[in-house]
């Protein structure tokens, strides 16, 4: 039985640097592996739609005729599944989180038409 175990911890923490950060002014660098938000390299996308079919949260919309790839950032659960299944590896998981938002809308990307294939020869 003792009363002073805690007193020792409290006294040492009195003279120690704070355990927390002054958040908005001091931001911790994200770990490289952090699942923050989905990024897309539009040039590599072939609009196959596998990401849309596989997404467990149904956050991705792919529309082939209008060449549009869109993601609802608030629906996305950052599970990395679309990145795993993407056949051309055009999707990436960025360690930074998506910016805060007050409206619920999808973030659209326009996929440029593929470059004409060089003639075989």
């Amino acid at each position, binding site marked *: 039985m003792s009363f002073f175990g*805690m007193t020792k911890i409290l006294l040492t923490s009195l003279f120690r640097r704070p355990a927390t950060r002054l958040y908005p002014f001091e931001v911790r660098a994200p770990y490289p592996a952090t699942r923050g938000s989905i990024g897309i390299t539009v040039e590599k996308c072939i609009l196959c739609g596998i990401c849309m079919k596989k997404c467990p949260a149904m956050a991705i919309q792919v529309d082939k005729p209008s060449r549009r790839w869109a993601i609802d950032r608030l629906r996305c659960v950052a599970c990395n599944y679309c990145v795993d299944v993407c056949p051309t590896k055009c999707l990436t998981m960025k360690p930074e989180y998506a910016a805060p938002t007050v409206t619920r809308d999808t973030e659209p990307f326009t996929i440029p038409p593929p470059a004409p294939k060089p003639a075989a020869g």
Partner: protein
Amino acid sequence: MSKRTIIPFGPQHPVLPEPIHLDLIVEDEKVVEAVPSIGFIHRGLEKLVDKRDFLDYVFVAERICGICSFTHGMSYCIAVEEVMNLPVPERALALRTFWAEIGRIHSHLLWLGLMADAFGFESLFMHTWRLREKVLDIYEETTGGRVIFNVCKPGGIRRDVTDEKMRDYAKVLNDLEPEIREINNVFMNDKTVHHRMCGVGVLSAADALKLGCVGPVLRATGVAQDMRHLNYAWYSQVNWKPATRTAGDCQARCEVRIDEIYQAIDIVRQIAGKMPAGEIACKVPGTPNGEYFVRTEQPRGEAVYYIKANGARNLVRFRIRTPTFANIPALVKALQGCDLADVPVLALTIDPCISCTER
């Protein structure tokens, strides 16, 4: 006989961030009877197997709970693997064990903090959670998430951790251990803590078994039952033995959890010392057909996962019995005859996680 009064407790209560409601029937200061009611956050996740492919369901399974999320995902994967008879690579099993034990450390530290908060020891609460932060950092560095990890998939895992990194994490935990010990000494020896927990909510071993208790609640009564003995994942390759106490009161439950923290650190150390090389996942051919009950040891106790499949891409039935579900009857019995002031402490010592209970 004195007058009986009914006092409602929860679903919103300062000490209990979990939506359980208890109708406490009290005579003076003594609780005579308690009637539990849950069902405030039932989401019907079990039925979601109808909407999701069995490979995709793992993302849902992991989101059943925010604390034992890794074990939920892992147990679902084990169930699918057992039904399909998949040869899961050993490296995947070792890493699963590593993450499961990290989860045990973080869950128990979380609980210790909440416990300190419940009896009004704010500074102890803050310090416990300060240490937990380092454990969460390991999770984030290896899996990419602090709460939901998404690293398990049927057949293996989705991310590898290098052997050097594993040794680094073992070292981080080694350095953390004296600090945890210092905090835990307060729980073990401080008079104010003992005053609130010793002799409160005593359960005997026979009662605990009859009421179907699991996890630390059962082990605090002296029954050394721990589902890790069934040797799922990589538990056959590491040395450990169930932590037990015999008193069966709140203090005993607290001490069992404290012992399990040290044990988990030791298991991580052992895994880091002998990481098997090789692949981290195997191919999943076809669809499951069959049924199996998986029993795993979550930080809160034994969880049962039942899978029934008939060869379709959706499962026929997926059922989870979470540890809190099994411990609620014991809580109700232990509440009978306790002081009204002890109700929050007692309710907390079963480590209730109502969100996973209701699924």
